[in-house]
């Protein structure tokens, strides 16, 4: 509900060809494949080595969702500890997060809880998060089982996917799911907000026991 109705986005919307703009953030430990994942989604390309992201970078992709053109501005972040303060500054404006770990790296999985806390601290409560275990093509080197990933996701109340940017497994699905839950959340918050709340005109015992009311056009 936050940014979709932002005037800033609406201004952009007038300039360009889309109905909504969602700002998404990919976070997770260093070297879990965030940049590769984003390149696979946005450019459908894969290189075994991208330069380690310095600070923050982004890509854009427009998708169609429920007859609406949704422009995704996806911010890719540096995973190094030292960049935390810089990247967390961007959390507040994000509507969705892709929290990524590397199934071949225990440490990156153990850090998920910590990343989650960061999201809770630095973003608004309505931001949506998807947990992603990347590099699932490297079955031989896998150290985090799918079950553990699932379990953790349940525990944290997140959606869960295992993906491979290299083999293009589930990459699109992750983004589509994230966009869906953001859309759901948006309409939900619109529904739950009756702009016309019944005016509780209190009944008063007055000289006129027939109070004027809207239905009576006399």
């Amino acid at each position, binding site marked *: *509900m*936050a*940014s979709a*109705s*932002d*005037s*800033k986005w609406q201004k952009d919307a007038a300039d360009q060809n889309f109905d909504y703009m969602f700002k998404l953030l990919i976070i997770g*430990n*260093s*070297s879990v494949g965030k940049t590769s994942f984003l390149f696979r989604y*946005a450019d459908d390309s894969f290189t*075994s*080595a*991208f*330069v*380690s*992201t*310095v*600070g*923050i*970078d*982004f*890509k*854009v992709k427009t998708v169609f969702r429920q007859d609406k053109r949704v422009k995704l*501005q996806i911010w890719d972040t540096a995973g*190094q500890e*030292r960049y935390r*303060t*810089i990247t967390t*500054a*961007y959390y*507040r*404006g994000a509507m969705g997060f892709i929290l990524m770990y590397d199934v071949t*790296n225990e440490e990156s999985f153990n850090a998920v809880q910590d990343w989650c806390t960061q999201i809770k601290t*630095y973003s*608004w*409560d309505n931001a949506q998060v998807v947990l992603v275990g990347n590099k699932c093509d490297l079955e031989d080197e896998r150290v985090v089982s799918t079950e553990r990933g699932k379990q953790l996701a349940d525990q944290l109340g997140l959606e869960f996917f295992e993906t491979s940017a290299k083999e293009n497994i589930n990459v699109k699905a992750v983004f589509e799911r994230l966009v869906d839950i953001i859309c759901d959340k948006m309409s939900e918050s619109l529904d*739950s*907000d*009756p702009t016309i*709340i019944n005016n*509780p*005109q*209190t*009944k008063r*015992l*007055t*000289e*006129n*026991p*027939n*109070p004027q*009311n809207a*239905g*009576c*056009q*006399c």
Partner: protein
Amino acid sequence: MVDFSTSRSWVESDVFEITDFTTASEWERFIAKLEEIIHEWKLTFSSKARKLTKGELTTGKWQETVESLQFADFKFLVSRYCLNGPADEVKAFGDQSLDSSTSREITILSNNEEEQGSGESGQSEVEEDGDKEVIPLVWQDMMSSENDFPGRCHCLCRWYGLRDFVVLAPANNMEDILSESRANLLMSSVAIALHNTSSQVPIFIQVHQRWRRLFLGQCISGGFRTSFEMVHLKNIPHQHSHMAGLLDVFRAKINSPVADHSLVSVAVRFTYVLQDWINYSWPQQPPGDYLQEFVLLCQRKESTGQLLGRTIGEPVDDTDVSQALSRLTEPVPYNLPSLGTVVTRATSKLQMRPEEAPIPVTTLNEILLFIFPDAKNEAKTSNNAVETITELDRASVSSQQSSAQSEGDGDSQKYTEIFKQFKSAPVDSLCYRLAVCMCIVNHSYGGLRAVIHLWQEFVLEMRYRWENMILIPDQQLGSINMGFSLLHQKLQMLNCCIERKQSREARHGKPSSNNKVKHRRISASSDVTEGGDDSESQHKSQSKGDSSFSSEEEFYECLESAEEGTSAEPSEMVTSPESDQPESMETDSGSTQKAEGRLKPCGDMKLINVNEFLFIPVTQEPAPMTEDMLEEHAEVLAKLGTSAEGANLRARMQSACLLSDMESFKAANPGCTLSDFVRWYSPRDWIKEDVVGEDGTVTVKGQLSQRMQIPGNVWTEVWQSANPVPAHRQRRLFDDTKEAEKVLHWLSSMKPADVALHLMPMLIHASVTKLLEQEESQLPMLKKLMNHISNKATRAMRAPKLDIKRFEVPDLVRQISRAETVLTRAQSLLTKFSQEKQDLNLTIQELQQFVSNLLELPDVQIMGAARGPLGTIIHRLFAAAQKNVYLLPEEDNAEEGDKTIKNIPDFPDPVGKEYILRTMSQRPSPWSRSSPQRMYCVLMKDDFRLAAAITSDTTFQ
């Protein structure tokens, strides 16, 4: 051919329409249109819906449909009012089973309530007919006693109990139907339309002036006609002021030819008004004033100068300042001795004599002391010693304080979640106090002028604190939290700057001026125009400016104690002579260099090429940013586009921090390589492998990851350009001088309306806090309302830009004051009822529920009626009011006035008496079938109304 034939048929149909002689006169056309509408609304089906449940006329959803039509050039509106929408008709046909039960319902009626007369009626006939014919909806509704005296609905519904009816009324206010002939003409039209369409829906016409609410109507069904007639008088005719008289009218109206022994059922309602709550005074400010007045400020157009008189050289300085700021941002070394002067003057000292100031000096000092409590001690010892803020609108301010204090206890704990979502400021912050003060100042000390006066003082204090390095009280230091309002973030930023400046000055051995000059500004603030303060601070900033722009000040200030402290490290500081051949490409710093700026060893890690522990260097903290800065920054990054070059450029733009870290690292670790740096900075880019040597021993060898080895990547490039420079000798990543000036400029250049706008989030926060503090806010309906307000407030505060017009603030403020009204009513009622409750068996929950219902529902049932505890309380309240009316003292003179007391009824005369009379009668002739008759009567002081629905048999007359 095909074309030809179709076009011909078109022509034919056109001609056919023109020669339509059936609607020749205006009158016929009017009736035709009315019929058309009846058909369009599908009113021709005989609705035979289920019976109304109790109270349904009030609780159900009404639907209104409106059409306009003309009689010559006289415009009418036809409106249909229908309970639960017209959906009922769909199931109207088919379920015959309901039929008999509804007709029985009519017969049962007479057992209810008061009875008059006795004996037989023609019920059986109706029942017999009921099997064959449909009982019209109108009859059901007229005779159903489930919905007598509904609370909120159309007056025709209240008078006749109808759930579906049509009203024909003049569209224009001025064109009332005053003549009888016109009314008759309309009634005939309606009759014809009803006949032609055989619709069973009652149609009313409104006659006479609107406010009289006089309607005539009719309904035709099953060989009966029901005519709705009305009498409206200003005074109650004496002979009809009681029920017997009304019964006479009813019987006369029916005028049945059969000896009338039929039962007449009567429903009665008397209305009493309790106006004198004599025992309880309830002084209460009109709600929402403070907030609503403040919101208006956000739309004011005046400039500060217009409000407070011209400020010194305003226009000239403005341009100067912007130049000065742009000069500040230039990367070249600068020398700006005049900057301090320029900027200080630009903060616009008021050219205003103290006696002209909107806020008197003493009051201003009190307010400032409240806003800056840390200045209190100083002020007390000074001559200006004033008591704290007692004279300030204490009630409001202290309540804010108490809310801050009560944050810990259970009740408010629930709300912390709500408030965490608010984008305002912490309850104990400067920003919050300032907003509350501004609101009170606006209300009580002279509106916008006073607000701006205080704001000017506030800005001056901010500058004073920056120049004298006095931290702003209660701000969360260290990091800027973008979860707070922009104003709060700006103050946090200023505090960051002050803190950095403090530590810098401390390191350079300058005596902290804090204790000496601390808070003199506040107590001296009365000297606004005397120039003393002015020139003093100018001097100060000037001298400070000189020193702070000297070359050494450009460097980052950081704790260097680690340098000495860590000399207790495992190895000596002396770098060992290089035994291995270093990768000269990476080791650009000579290994003979002395290590500088070490923080601590990085575990027991050793450098690759040098037999030396790897040290984590002292590093510069990244520059803090407020949300507007971040947004600007992000926009610049986004503008570079998504191409590879763009990405590369972006990386370079953000590499300042990386460069600084690399330089620090090089300084701390002479002889180090990029690999060493990566092992500390990005460990996963150091790939370790076990290598089995020739002799079988396993050694761990490592290398840079593939991505770190990409030729020309940012990391290697920055590494190559990095010189070994410890953090304290690097250029500052965060230029606190520049940032502080930017904040101060932002504050001082704000328009009055902007000031108000930027304070709104805190004010809304304070208002919601205040409401939630009241325990009555837990009443169900208020809870709902508060929830709604909280959500709305959250959304409004998080909007990217505070915009008073588009922004939901005005609406939000309205809702808040409505909540306040409801809350106050609840409190008032609870207090009044609680006073009488002591000896009664009534829990506080029951009472709360009752009060909640009173506020929410049109009608509230009193459990146990007059004998229940609530009934008793109400009885007592009335009795007390009565005693007061008769000027009887509470307890005294009880014996004396004994007689009179006995004569005083506990209840006053009812302000309104209402009756509904119902019966079944045969009319107009003895052989007519029996049909339902009804008359509603209301008797008030200035209003007497009879609304009769009289049915006659049109078949057997």
